[in-house]
């Protein structure tokens, strides 16, 4: 691999959580699909962590995650398995948003 290919990795607009594997990650994958209609959800499972990404912006709603988990869920409980994330984050009581402000 050359310098060019390393440099190419920079040119992406993927945002979204990097989760520890488990039932929450599974619920987030489903919620990402439901809460971001029309967007392709990219899932990259590295066993110890799972990248769940969409282009440019991803919103996750507390209610959707709750339905997918089948149990009550507070938005900030996401942190238990949120190891990292791509893009910027905006956290609220009932949703979390990952986004880039600029496209490359």
């Amino acid at each position, binding site marked *: 691999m050359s310098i060019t290919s390393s440099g190419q990795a920079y040119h992406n607009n993927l945002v979204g959580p990097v989760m520890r594997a488990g039932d929450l990650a599974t619920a987030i994958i489903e919620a990402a699909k439901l809460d971001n209609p029309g967007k392709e959800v990219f899932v990259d499972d590295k066993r110890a*962590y799972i990248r769940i990404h969409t282009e440019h912006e991803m919103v996750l709603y507390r209610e959707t995650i709750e339905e997918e988990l089948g149990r009550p869920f*507070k938005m900030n*409980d996401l*942190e238990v398995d949120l190891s990292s994330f*791509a893009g910027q984050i905006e956290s609220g009581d009932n949703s979390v948003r990952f986004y880039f402000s600029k496209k490359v």
Partner: protein
Amino acid sequence: MALLNRMDWYDLARTTNWSPKYVTEDELFPPLMSGAFGLPQNAWEKYDEPYKQTYPEYVKVQRDKDAGAYSVKAALERSRIFENADPGWKSVMKAHYGAIARGEYAAASAEARMMRFSKAPGMRNMSTLGCLDEVRHGQMQLYFPHEHVSKDRQMDWAFKAYDTNEWGMIAARHFFDDIMMTRDAISVSIMLTFSFETGFTNMQFLGLAADAAEAGDHTFANLISSIQTDESRHAQIGGPALKVLIENGQKAEAQKRVDIAVWGAWKLFSVLTGPIMDYYTPLEHRKQSFKEFMEEWIVAQFERALTDMGLDLPWYWDIFLKDIAETHHGMHMGSYFWRPTVWWNPAAGVTPDERAWLEEKYPGWNDTWGQCWDVIIDNVVDGNMAMAYPETLPYVCNMCQLPILGTPGKKWNVKDYPLEYNGRLYHFGSEVDRWCFEQEPERYAGHLSIVDRFLAGMIQPMDLGGALAYMNLAPGECGDDAHNYAWAEVYRALRATKKAS
């Protein structure tokens, strides 16, 4: 009684700035500690942390995290993972715990400085939680290795390393002291939380967790990925500070701090994380190469986020992209060759199968690093062990404190980047290391590298024994080949086959 939603009261609850009447603002927030960049309190009140958390939520979430990490440890304690692990993997654990565990306490102190001295109320709140996070990381990463201390003396370095003058620790301390122990609150938020934690900690705590999971070490994988869930929150302390600085015309100062911290982190990871991912982790358990992890976490994720915040790619971007395929191979060869001077047993990682993997991941490896390894391998196969150990000192960079190295072979390019400052001649391993030093020479000028100390007669007697004593490496702790050279058998067999034909 119904509880208010967090966002109904969060902004009010963290409005904790006031106008001091009995002291001046500079006495309440000394610029040296607060790093206000000439901005008054009210400019910092615009600081809005994007990843919000309150203390009651924090306690609940952290309790859940600890319950998870400790229960996995308890469940797997009797599975003899450590006893049965490949010696290369044990070295991964030893290097990790020694280089990191005690640094977590230092990070707690840095978080505490933001907690007290930042003029931004939101930052004070988030770093209160961040400080508790770092205490957690220190405690866990001392507690988890402790069960192995009775089985292996080198595991004791999880606690011991940080207090020693072992060369790798001098380099690690030099970097961490620079970005977090000797900087004002705002600079800490930029250099430690933003530059180091949103970027590089992912390499060590998630990239390595992926390798750990493949190696079957789920206790370790679970521990370090749990730690990273704290990091992903408190790493966000720096972002809004960058935004305030950029809005107030301080982009150049912010950019400079990011560029210094990213370069220092890169150099440290090239000696710590590069070798363990590409050489120590057993071949069948390597999830990706070090370079691929760097591309994933640093190039695609961190640098992309950095420019989204309004900063530029570092001026040394092209040098960095070239180096992520090269530097760590030299660092590995150096730490293997000088193996008595580390607290773990380096795995050579150069069997024919491993070399094929290296050649695939780093085309040209055999024509460059491979040539040097051929000589080491021949000496080991011939039983010429005296030649497989060093006789001289490496040249050490006065910025990163790591050996000055280049890529061997036809394009041999090792070069010293010297600088004379106040009558003393300094040596640097790259243009970037020298640039970092030049940004604030008086900050670094008084430091002596391990080689400077040797030449100044501070290490006596001036031989390997004296050096090991200076580094606090006792017999039984000094590193040697992780597999006791068993890997050389395949080369012995190859030579025998060749002779027979």
